[in-house]
């Protein structure tokens, strides 16, 4: 019931944006900014590029306001745009070019994250290694599997929503998720008890 109210509210805000209310756009941005950027960051694994792509996503949302129709959940529509932007970025080969700078940047990010906790040097090293392993395991997934897993795990989207966002069938999504988690289990299952 709560979810339905939220969906209606987002769609209502977008309809107000369509009528020229820029304040409603600011509200939508405030609510969905972080989830979109985090999704793109985990897809591309480069914070600067993720923010650039997120701007592209919200720019497209704003430009599409005139033709917006609330036929699907707002988040589904939003993540369809975000997935398109991310998959196009990867397909165009820009993703590979970013990989060299990615390692350095991600290590810095990891250090920032870990340093915030009060851990011993040894604990920090273990966490860094674990974090790097998770990041690499996800990075090696095919792009569409990666998108499906990230939407399933971090956005808690249902199969139908992921299917709509990736423009495929629900059974295709289940297959994508099953194969992706199979790969991740093979690579990460040894971590049991490490945390």
């Amino acid at each position, binding site marked *: 019931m709560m979810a339905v109210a939220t969906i209606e509210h987002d769609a209502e805000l977008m309809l107000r944006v369509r009528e020229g209310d820029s304040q409603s756009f*600011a509200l939508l*941005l405030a609510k969905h*900014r*972080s989830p979109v*950027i*985090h999704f793109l*960051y*985990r897809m591309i694994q480069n*914070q600067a590029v993720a*923010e650039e792509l*997120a*701007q592209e996503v*919200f*720019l497209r949302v*704003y*430009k599409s306001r005139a033709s917006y129709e609330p036929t699907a959940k707002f988040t589904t529509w939003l993540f369809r745009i975000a997935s398109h932007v991310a998959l196009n970025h990867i397909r165009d080969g820009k993703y590979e070019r970013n990989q060299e700078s990615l390692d350095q940047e991600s290590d810095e*990010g990891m250090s*920032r*994250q870990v340093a915030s906790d009060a851990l011993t040097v040894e604990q920090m090293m273990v*966490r860094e290694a*674990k*974090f790097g*392993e*998770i*990041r690499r395991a*996800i990075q090696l997934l095919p792009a569409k599997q990666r998108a499906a897993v990230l939407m*399933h*795990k*971090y956005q*808690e989207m249902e*199969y139908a929503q992921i299917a709509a966002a990736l423009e495929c069938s629900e059974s295709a999504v*289940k297959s994508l*998720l*099953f194969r992706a*988690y199979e790969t*991740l*289990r093979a690579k*990460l*299952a040894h*971590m*049991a008890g490490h*945390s």
Partner: protein
Amino acid sequence: MNPKNVNCPMQSGNAEILLSYCARSLEPEQVAQIELHLSACAECRAWATEQKTVWAAMDAWEAEPVSADFDAALFARIAAAEKPSAWERWSAPWREILRGGMGWRPVLSAGVVALTLVIALSIENPFRREPVGQTVKLEAQEIEQAERALEDLEMLRQLEPPEEETSL
């Protein structure tokens, strides 16, 4: 009934229910049913344990904080994108006329007439061949002058006395 044999997700090709169980997105009755099965099925239990490990490992991957100037940069991009191009600025009054109360038929008719004139003039030009016509005219004048000169010479010759008579 043996819980091991009841609706084994792995055997019945319904592993997604195990995935949903590990993602904690099942209803309480379904959770109870799956846990009953897991207590008896080592294969599903091992699968679920591995999946929970992956799930927990992924939880550890926190995203980075968003830049403070993200919104400002976005609104600047929106403002730039919304700014009309030179063509849009130039064509705006014309589009307004076409869209407006004047009606588009008279404007369109005038436009068609103007376009026809422009095309007619541009087609006319190549056939006029102004320089070539002038050359032909000049050549004709030169021939005419030469003919006149010959006629004048002939007339002078006729006026002159015969050469023999002069010498005598």
